[in-house]
């Protein structure tokens, strides 16, 4: 016979540990409810909105719920419609993890660039000349489908030459590179986009697909066996795949005007026909060329908006997979060929200079569009009609230049950590934490090789953390003489003051590292005026140890800056809430020191222990007092009181809380586990008795337990309301089972130093005293 019987209630949370962690991280006040609005806001701040087809079911379910909050079951039910995406959002793992900041940056640049009214819109055909030139739209789409839209991002405009890279892709994907490159070259032409020249290598091919001749050739190659109208339908379907479902609109009048003014393009076509380089070679007939030209004019006359064009660019950034539908549109090799030629030839005669400064594959169109592809990160579209003399949108190029100055996006940017430009692939919080923690950690563990490497890499080795602790402080505190010498030799000051006014010399003295003290003094190091207060409380709770120092530093910084978004992100990633840094500092220490009330509340609601102690034995409450953070002092003092007392209802279901409370209390006071178990036995006996009595006494509504420990003794006072009842005498006369009658009384007598009962002020008061010294074998 094999029976397995579990008496634990099946906890939903235990079956879904990851989802529960996400829920918990978002449950700011710890009431086991998540606000719908917080969830939606979090998605929006990450560039995910109702427009995203992946979130259709998610929003439908969310809207159907009447309540403004979600419990775990409802949360689970809703997020499973898009669980991977939501997991990425909450853990900060999307392509643009700091989307909110990215959005702010681009928006503020937009506000400046919109003032730039230089340039002239295209006028060679009437419909382009009629467009309002003041319009300006920006859209960016990350490879994870995060969407940024600013200004006129939903306004249709003529795609014009911005279609060229895509025509090339359609042909490549259909026919293969070998075939396509028999008809189109891969070289910059060095001439204007409409220049009447072909390659002089004997092939007579157009130079590349980004100039008119090459684009006409690409059109000639697209589904050449189909009738003309089907070919245009095919192109529009391909656009729909790239944009995640939007089919570009066809402007027949524009196409007619393109054709009417298209003699130069016809001339290019006939040159290619004469060179025998059209798909049918020397057998090419007039209608083949005519269809190719008409298709080209039609494609250039498609209308599209900035969001759609950015999504198409993002499909290229994402190696050919549409970021919104996650469907593959192009083969990887197609995208690679296209991006290479975009970078060389995409910006008309300005391509070389643009590539040097911006360093990204790009394409412009005379409709005013500029698209940028940031490989493996995002696609961007700037649209504004006024053009510079080369034919590129003035505001588009202005924006591209500004972005290049702000962000590390140039394909040849090095991987160096320290740059004034921002890496959009990591959050600034993460990158700051990383820059700081590498040196501090190396100093803390005496890793001189890593410090040398950081020094060679131009890292600032005098930079401090959120407590202004520098590598020199930590090396001195830990007695790493060689590290201190290395830092001094490299002219790092030994007189930085940390949060408490302490210098490295103070650290060395605290650690009693005489050799370090001597060395520091030889180099003119001075003592600081370090002020650390000793805590009144004797209890200590353990902080968590977590190997990833960067992550810990990031968590602590988030607490110091009241950055609840990032606190949530850290917890969603599974960083323990009470993780301590090299100085034993925790998130609660930092939030308390800097008076960040929201962060303190968030951390307390997430079970951050309150009696954690840093290197100087200080608790978060000590920090808050020292820095006169009155609001935080109040919160933490209340938490410390709560730590010493517990109120339960007269219900056996409450005994689990009592048990957890006792465990936390005795652990913090270093009580031997056997003694703690004995206390637990006594509490189980007396509380069971009181609860049993209360079942026939409706006037007993609550039971209050107050704990008070010294090094030697633990005193527990249990007060209950209701009629007079002495659990001690009851425990002596229990006759339920003859064999063990009075056992409860025996256990209480054996395990306590003293137990007494009093009735006063209409309350039952039971005092229990336990000896905390190391237990010896019981004399029974």
């Amino acid at each position: 016979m094999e029976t397995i019987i579990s008496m634990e209630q099946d906890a939903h949370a235990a079956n879904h540990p990851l989802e529960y962690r996400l829920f918990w991280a978002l449950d700011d006040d710890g009431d086991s409810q998540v606000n719908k609005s917080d969830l939606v806001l979090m998605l929006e701040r990450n560039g995910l909105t109702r427009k995203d087809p992946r979130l259709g079911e998610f929003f439908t379910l969310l809207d159907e719920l009447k309540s403004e909050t979600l419990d775990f079951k409802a949360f689970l039910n809703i997020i499973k419609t898009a669980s991977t995406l939501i997991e990425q959002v909450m853990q900060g793992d999307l392509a643009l993890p700091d989307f909110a900041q990215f959005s702010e940056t681009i928006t503020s640049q937009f506000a400046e660039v919109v003032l730039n009214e230089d340039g002239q819109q295209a006028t060679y055909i009437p419909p382009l000349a009629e467009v309002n030139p003041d319009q300006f739209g920006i859209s960016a789409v990350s490879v994870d489908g995060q969407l940024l839209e600013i200004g006129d991002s939903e306004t249709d405009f003529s795609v014009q030459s911005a279609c060229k890279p895509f025509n090339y892709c359609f042909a490549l994907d259909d026919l293969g590179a070998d075939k396509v490159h028999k008809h189109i070259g891969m070289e910059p032409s060095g001439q204007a986009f409409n220049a009447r020249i072909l390659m002089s290598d004997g092939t007579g091919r157009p130079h590349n697909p980004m100039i008119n001749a090459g684009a006409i050739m690409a059109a000639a190659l697209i589904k050449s066996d189909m009738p003309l109208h089907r070919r245009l339908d095919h192109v529009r379907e391909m656009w729909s795949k790239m944009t995640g479902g939007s089919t570009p609109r066809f402007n027949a009048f524009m196409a007619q005007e393109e054709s009417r003014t298209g003699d130069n393009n016809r001339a290019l076509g006939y040159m290619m026909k004469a060179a025998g380089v059209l798909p049918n070679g020397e057998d090419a007939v007039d209608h083949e060329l005519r269809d190719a030209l008409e298709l080209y004019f039609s494609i250039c006359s498609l209308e599209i908006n900035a969001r759609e064009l950015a999504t198409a660019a993002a499909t290229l950034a994402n190696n050919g997979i549409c970021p919104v539908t996650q469907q593959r549109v192009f083969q990887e090799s197609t995208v690679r060929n296209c991006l290479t030629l975009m970078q060389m030839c995409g910006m008309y005669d300005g391509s070389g200079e643009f590539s040097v400064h911006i360093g990204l594959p790009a394409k412009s169109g005379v409709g005013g569009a500029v698209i940028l592809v940031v490989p493996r990160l995002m696609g961007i579209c700037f649209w504004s009609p006024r053009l510079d003399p080369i034919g590129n949108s003035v505001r588009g190029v202005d924006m591209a230049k500004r972005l290049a100055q702000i962000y590390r996006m140039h394909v040849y940017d090095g991987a160096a950590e320290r740059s004034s430009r921002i890496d959009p692939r990591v959050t600034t919080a993460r990158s700051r934490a990383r820059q700081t923690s590498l040196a501090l950690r190396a100093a803390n563990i005496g890793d001189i090789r890593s410090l040398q490497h950081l020094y060679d890499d131009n890292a600032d080795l005098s930079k401090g953390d959120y407590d202004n602790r520098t590598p020199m402080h930590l090396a001195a505190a830990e007695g790493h003489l060689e590290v201190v010498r290395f830092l001094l030799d490299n002219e790092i000051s030994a007189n930085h003051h940390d949060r408490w006014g302490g210098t490295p010399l103070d650290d060395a003295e605290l650690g009693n590292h005489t050799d370090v003290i001597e060395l520091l003094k030889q180099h003119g190091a001075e003592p600081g005026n370090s002020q650390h207060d000793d805590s009144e409380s004797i209890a200590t709770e353990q902080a968590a140890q977590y190997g990833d120092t960067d992550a810990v530093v990031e968590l602590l910084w988030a607490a110091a800056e009241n950055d609840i978004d990032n606190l949530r992100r850290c917890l969603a990633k599974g960083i323990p809430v009470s993780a301590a840094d090299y100085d034993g500092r925790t998130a609660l220490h930092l939030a308390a020191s800097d008076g960040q009330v929201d962060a303190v509340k968030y951390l307390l609601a997430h079970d951050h222990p309150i009696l954690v102690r840093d290197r100087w034995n200080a608790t978060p409450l000590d920090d808050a007092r020292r820095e006169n953070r009155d609001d935080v002092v109040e919160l933490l003092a209340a938490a410390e009181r709560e730590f010493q007392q517990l109120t339960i209802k007269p219900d056996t279901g409450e005994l689990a809380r009592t048990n957890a409370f006792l465990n936390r209390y005795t652990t913090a006071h270093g009580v031997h586990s056997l003694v703690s178990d004995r206390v637990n036995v006594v509490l189980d006996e007396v509380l069971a008795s009181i609860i049993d009595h209360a079942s026939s006494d409706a006037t007993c509504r609550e039971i209050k337990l107050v704990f008070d420990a010294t090094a030697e003794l633990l005193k527990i006072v249990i007060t209950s309301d209701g009629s007079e009842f002495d659990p001690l005498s009851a425990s002596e006369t229990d006759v339920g089972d003859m064999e063990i009658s009075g056992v409860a009384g025996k256990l209480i007598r054996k395990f306590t130093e003293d137990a007494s009962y009093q009735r006063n002020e209409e309350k039952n008061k039971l005092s229990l005293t336990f000896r905390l010294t190391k237990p010896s074998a019981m004399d029974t």
Partner: protein
Amino acid sequence: MEITTRNAGETLIVDLTGSLDTQTSGQASEEMTQIVTETNGNSLLMNLENLEFLSSAGLRVLLRAAKDFQGKGGTIKICQAKGVVKEVLDISGFGSFLEIHDNESDALAAFS
């Protein structure tokens, strides 16, 4: 709290894991009654190696199971109690009407 059973020859061994206290005693009592009722053998050994906690409410469960089993003519023994569980058993005087052994093999040997 978790209760599992296994066989060692003629003896049914019941392994108790976790806490046997006021909170868990109701459910544990039902499970123990079921085990005692369903078994056909004459010897039952409660192994308390993984029992972390025991109070008088839990003692009552063990006592009830022992009485039921003895009522069927069976013999019940306890083994491998440790820490506070052993102390509670000792103080209660459980040993005067149930055999308590330090290890499982001694207890099994004592059945024959």
